[in-house]
């Protein structure tokens, strides 16, 4: 390997990458977009949910409760004249959640001394929108629990709350977020850690998929092959600069996740960026293999898109691998992304060290060596 030749190749790749506005846009916007989409919009708050309210009690306590519900941006509140009207509105889809405060609410509150029955209100959801309902339930639940003590000394035991089923909420404090695409019922940090796996797998292969095939079509790849540049130099000439760009992307995502989503890695950020950078190389090598084995750019992109389907379905990014049938679990564990996402979550959520993630790291290491070796063979191949 000749360093000057390698530097020549690396420099050209950097020039090409940064002079293409589309590539630069993708490299910056996709990581941020995915992070916000998966981490923010899908994983957490449901905002401006239409909530219908029937206040049958018309007491100071019930008005206070209504005001608390309205104070949170989560709900847009509409008043309804009867509980039947609430039912109709739910049926027609005008509202997503209905809250019925019964006529005896105030009495109940007053009577809710230790040993007495707690005050009751009714919360209605559209069962067809189970996930949405889950979210709304969690919110109404937590809100009501938070406001219960404020209703005076009447509701001291928030655990036996005003809301049916609220026992699940626990503590009456904090938000139990249920993401639409997050059946693991885990929150933003879980999604953020997984999003790294998704972005680094998908975007790297997508960016590299066209790189060699385009050079082939332009004739520059053939030209490279008749220069003294070796196949390992050509390969590294692609891997190193793009690896650096994606390492920057990882850092960018860590910062955005921290500043915007308030999710910082629990474990070592350095370890995380290091493992991520290595994973990027694996993924880039895979993209280069797609590219070098394709006759057209379209074919290479199709391969990338096909590859991204198991990436989303099997990697554990959205659906927990442990819930899959055994055979599918085997398949899932063949994907490097599955192991990277496991590591990513281990560092991000549980601050685990190298020891516990050794099997996954080992798998990634072997994959990386194998894929980079194979990519070199493919680049070198003479028809």
């Amino acid at each position: 390997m000749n360093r000057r030749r390698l530097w020549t190749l690396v420099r050209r790749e950097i020039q090409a990458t940064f002079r293409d506005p589309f590539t630069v846009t993708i490299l910056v916007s996709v990581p941020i977009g995915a992070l916000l989409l998966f981490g923010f919009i899908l994983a957490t708050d449901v905002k401006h949910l239409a909530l219908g309210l029937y206040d049958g009690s018309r007491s100071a306590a019930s008005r206070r409760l209504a005001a608390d519900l309205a104070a949170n941006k989560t709900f847009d509140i509409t008043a309804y004249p009867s509980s039947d009207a609430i039912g109709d509105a739910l049926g027609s889809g005008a509202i997503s959640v209905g809250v019925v405060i019964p006529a005896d609410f105030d009495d109940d509150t007053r009577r809710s001394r230790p040993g007495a029955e707690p005050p009751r209100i009714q919360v209605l959801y559209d069962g067809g929108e189970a996930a949405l309902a889950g979210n709304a339930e969690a919110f109404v639940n937590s809100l009501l629990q938070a406001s219960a003590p404020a209703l005076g000394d009447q509701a001291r035991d928030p655990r036996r709350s005003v809301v049916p089923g609220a026992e699940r909420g626990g503590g009456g404090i904090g938000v139990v977020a249920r993401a639409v695409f997050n059946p693991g019922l885990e929150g933003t940090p879980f999604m953020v850690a997984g999003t790294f796996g998704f972005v680094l797998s998908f975007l790297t292969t997508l960016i590299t998929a066209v790189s060699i095939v385009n050079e082939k079509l332009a004739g520059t790849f053939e030209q490279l092959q008749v220069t003294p540049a070796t196949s390992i130099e050509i390969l590294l000439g692609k891997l190193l600069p793009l690896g650096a760009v994606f390492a920057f992307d990882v850092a960018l995502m860590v910062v955005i996740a921290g500043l915007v989503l308030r999710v910082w890695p629990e474990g070592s950020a350095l370890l995380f960026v290091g493992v991520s950078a290595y994973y990027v190389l694996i993924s880039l090598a895979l993209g280069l293999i797609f590219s070098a084995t394709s006759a057209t750019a379209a074919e290479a992109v199709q391969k990338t898109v096909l590859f991204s389907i198991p990436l989303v379905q099997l990697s554990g990014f959205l659906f927990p691998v442990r819930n899959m049938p055994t055979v599918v679990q085997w398949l899932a564990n063949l994907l490097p992304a599955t192991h990277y996402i496991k590591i990513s979550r281990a560092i991000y959520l549980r601050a685990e060290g190298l020891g516990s993630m050794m099997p996954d790291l080992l798998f990634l290491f072997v994959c990386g060596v194998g894929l980079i070796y194979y990519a070199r063979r493919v680049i070198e191949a003479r028809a």
Partner: protein
Amino acid sequence: MNTPIIQAHGLTKRFGDFTAVDALDLSVERGSIFAFLGANGSGKSTTIRMLIGLLRPTAGTIEVDGVDVIRRPRRVRDHIGYMGQKVSLYQGLSLRENVEFYAGLYGLTGEELERRWTALRERFDLGAFEKERSEDLSAGVRQRAGLAVATLHRPRLLFLDEPTAGVDVHNRARFWEIIQEEAEAGVTVFVTTHFLEEADYCDWVSFIDRGRLIANAPPEELRSRFSQGYRIDIDVTAEERPRVLQRLDGAIPAPELTATGLRVRLPKLEPEFLGRLEQAAKEAPGARIAIEQPAMTDVFRRVLASVASQDPRGAP
């Protein structure tokens, strides 16, 4: 050194059932311009790509500049320059940046590169385009730039695959001037083209048809074998005619008389005959001499026809 710089024997390339190149024997002399002609899809590019080690032959041997290209394709890379059908400049990079990139791969940097590039830039008329991005260059300029890039490292052997495709007549002529200059400087040029008339710029012509060589000779020899030869018309007055005839006395075949003067048909133009013609022109200042050479296109039409009559595969 008199050993041929390229020697290929029994060179064959099959893609599945299709035989793209069929048992080709090639021999290219050092310092010559070797034209490799043929229609589109006749196997020209496949052959050139095997010669430079981009493609592994199904059978046969190749030796380029003393290197067994099939076994050691990388060994020959410092000696050869290659310009493919698509001139391989990187889009988005200026001409200058492309030059620096390829020079860097050949280990050419600093002052050495400056000197080499300055010389090439002058000779190839590229000075005005240095800062332009490669995609903005016109076809003719791009072609010259491609050649400049391919010759940066002073290769002993240049492989040019259809270098003049898509280039206008003026730029094609300019391009061939440069190629001839390279050859005069001792560089061997192996060039494919489907412009048959370009064979005249070359020292040797190999004509490939459906993977097989059907002609392999200097252009003059092909002309004499596959055409009615040169036609020389001499317009001359009755008074001057005897003087001209005297000069051309002994020429074979003998000149015919025409309404305006004389006509000679010759399979080849020998220097000796041209000398006589020059003398005759001096002695008969009123004479107007026109030499018509058979078009290469016609020559190849005849080559093809003669092959078709023997080839069981039938006419192309």
